[in-house]
């Protein structure tokens, strides 16, 4: 009986903890929206954050998309052998990169690079009382720390993702020309066959939502960090896990809403 009571207590505590964490995140979201009007606090940091979150993420995004494009081309060719014209490799690479793998793989990679970085940085500021110090110096920490990061994420993720889409398709083209019996005009014919301008919009919409997710989840976990180094480590891990899960849920959500 006592074991059962302990189990029920543990489940109850976990449920209360999750609900209050959601509540805190909700309040932080509201505070962030309100803090948008404090332009003088966030605007000076926006460009710096855009460089850190966007420009510095380009190498890893391009690395992932290059190899994804190559693998997609080779796997398509392997699958189509004999049954489907080979120029359909271009169609599959283009469609898959732009609609799915470009945004999702970039989003997941950046949840590790950007989300972990933000959670660790803000979490360290929290446990070393730097956020309290900001408040005592009359700085709204939400406007000063969170707003520029989330805005930078929303603005830069689509640019990184569209670049990753393009490089992935080009890598697919290179692999097709070098390793398959497929010429550039044939590959491009395949890409153009099913390409819709909306595909790029879809990719960008997903990227914006992923950018907001990764940065705001990183900020929320960092902002509510407790304890010392262990707390910062925990916040960082949770930020990456939770933002990765939300990215996958959002991926399905956008497909259900915009592709039907």
């Amino acid at each position: 009986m006592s074991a059962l009571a302990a189990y029920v207590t543990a489940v109850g505590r976990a449920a209360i903890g999750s609900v209050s964490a959601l509540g805190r995140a909700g309040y932080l979201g509201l505070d962030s929206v309100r803090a948008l009007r404090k332009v003088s606090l966030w605007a000076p940091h926006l460009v710096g954050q855009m460089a850190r979150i966007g420009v510095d993420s380009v190498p890893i995004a391009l690395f992932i998309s290059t190899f994804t494009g190559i693998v997609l081309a080779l796997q398509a060719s392997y699958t189509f052998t004999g049954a489907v014209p080979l120029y359909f490799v271009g169609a599959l690479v283009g469609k898959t990169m732009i609609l799915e793998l470009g945004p999702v793989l970039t989003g997941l990679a950046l949840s590790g690079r950007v989300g972990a970085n933000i959670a660790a940085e803000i979490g360290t500021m929290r446990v070393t009382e730097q956020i309290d110090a900001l408040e005592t110096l009359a700085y709204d920490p939400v406007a000063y720390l969170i707003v520029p990061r989330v805005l930078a994420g929303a603005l830069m993720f689509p640019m990184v993702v569209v670049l990753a889409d393009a490089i992935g398709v080009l890598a697919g083209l290179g692999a097709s020309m070098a390793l398959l019996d497929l010429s550039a005009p044939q590959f491009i014919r395949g890409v153009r066959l099913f390409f819709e301008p909306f595909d790029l919009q879809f990719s960008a919409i997903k990227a914006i939502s992923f950018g907001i997710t990764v940065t705001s989840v990183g900020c929320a976990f960092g902002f509510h960090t407790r304890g010392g180094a262990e707390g910062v480590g925990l916040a960082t891990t949770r930020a990456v896990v939770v933002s990765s899960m939300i990215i996958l849920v959002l991926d399905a959500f956008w497909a259900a809403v915009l592709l039907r």
Partner: protein
Amino acid sequence: MSIELVNVHKAFGANEVLKGFTLSIKDGSTTTIVGGSGSGKSVMLKHIVGLLRPDEGDVWVDEHNISRLDQESLFRLRRNVGYVFQFAALFDSMTIAENVGMGLRRMKDFPKEEIPSRVSECLHLVDLDGYEGHLPSQLSGGQKKRAGLARAIATRPKYILYDEPTTGLDPVTTAVIDEMIVRMSEELNVTGVVISHDMKSAFRISDRIAMLYEGSVRIDGTPDEVRASDDPIVKGFIEGIPELMAVKP
């Protein structure tokens, strides 16, 4: 009264830290709050600047009830309050000059071109001349605390709150910091509230000493009154005799 805490209660989960804490701090005085580790001294101090809000009771600063102020009014009030953090809480990506000038940059009525000279003046007051371009990581523990003090005084606040300013420092550096706290009170005429468990320091710098024990004020008086107290809890704490403190009233 410039700062007044009235019947303040604060709990974190089941842990009730402040249980009806009441204290008045007079303008121009330096009051030290002493008490054992984990007794809630820092929690009390954070209430004065609105970093924490009481579950019950009121905190008055300059006739403003901190617990009822909206965020903007609280930020305005904080310009009158300097806070020296236990571990300095310097922004580690900024130079010392940038740290000290942070509060000034938020003051719309303070000319931007005068920030460097005010920063140098504050660093001079804490004997850190020439450290403007250093990063916090290049400073020793005592220097960091002094830089934190320079940041707190830069906006010329009416009040300075010191959270354990001498913890972890050697006796000589402790004496230097103590001397600076006294100097801030005399030269800048600020009201100081100091959190400490170092009785030697407390007797050296304070006009009044209050002891926080089990969530409320055990004694509040001049250093001589505290020294002369025959309350076993107070005596035990001052003289470092835990056996005396184990005696329940």
